[in-house]
């Protein structure tokens, strides 16, 4: 009973919040609604028994990724209203939904439910984080290490890309820069 209430509440709220993200013309509204939608997605993970995944979603997505976006905001002019294409929204909705349906049909057509079987069943008498740890460090050890190297490369790349010319301000207008030079 409570599971049903929670599921329907989460699904309605996430769909609404992500619609705000997609349709809003203000970057700040889009970012805050995306962050709160991510929190509710973590609720889906808890509902489907993936406790560890939900915690990782909260820490990585809501904590790290959204904070990174919020820091990125400092470099862009966020108060400006974003211009959008003048194409009709109805056309975009029809195309979006039909492409999504097409992709689902494409990927789901060759799969029949009878041939799906559990290749990695969770350990009995183990809580979800324990079972995840056992599988992650045995069967998925190599992808785990590769993901670690990939994250390291991404970190170095991000620092190198964004760190160039950090002493110059992007948001100050020309006049402010001139005044600063005069003071010096």
């Amino acid at each position, binding site marked *: 009973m409570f*599971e*049903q209430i929670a599921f329907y509440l989460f699904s309605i709220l*996430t*769909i609404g919040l992500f*619609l705000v*993200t*997609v349709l809003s013309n203000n*970057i700040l509204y889009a970012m805050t609604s*995306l962050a709160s*939608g*991510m929190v509710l*997605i973590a609720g889906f*993970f808890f*509902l*489907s*028994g*993936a406790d560890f*995944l939900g915690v*990782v*979603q909260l820490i*990585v*997505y809501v904590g*790290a*990724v959204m904070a990174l*976006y919020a820091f*990125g905001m400092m470099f*862009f002019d966020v108060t400006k209203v*974003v*211009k*959008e*294409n003048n194409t009709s*929204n109805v056309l*975009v*909705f029809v*195309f*979006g*939904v039909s*492409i*999504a*349906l097409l992709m*689902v049909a494409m990927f789901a057509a060759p799969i029949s439910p009878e041939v*799906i079987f*559990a*290749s*990695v*069943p*969770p350990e009995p008498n183990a809580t979800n984080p324990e079972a995840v740890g056992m*599988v*992650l460090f045995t069967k998925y050890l190599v*992808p785990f290490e590769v993901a670690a190297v990939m*994250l390291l490369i*991404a*970190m170095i*790349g*991000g620092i*190198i*890309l*964004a760190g160039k*010319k950090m002493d110059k301000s*992007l948001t100050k207008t020309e006049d402010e820069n001139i005044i600063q030079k005069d003071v010096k």
Partner: protein
Amino acid sequence: MIGLNHYLIVAGLLFAIGLIGVIRRRNLLMLFFATEIMLNAANVAFAAISHYYNDLSGQMFAFFIIAIAASEVAIGLGLLILIYKKQGTLDLDDLASMKG
């Protein structure tokens, strides 16, 4: 009772919302938000299937998707800052420099 289909329908709806965003948006930062929505929709579907088939592989895939999304954001935001420094805008139509 909530079944697997309920979760898959919600995931499909979220994916469609993300796809609508990718088609509709002209600002590069908003395009990034839309791709995040699509990645999250895939994660919801993976977690639900992992629960209903009693198999941990789906959760593992969701973990790696989260790791890839995190590195994508780190690199992508660096590139966006570079583009903004160079061009002064994030609008896709203004960035079209090759006139055919």
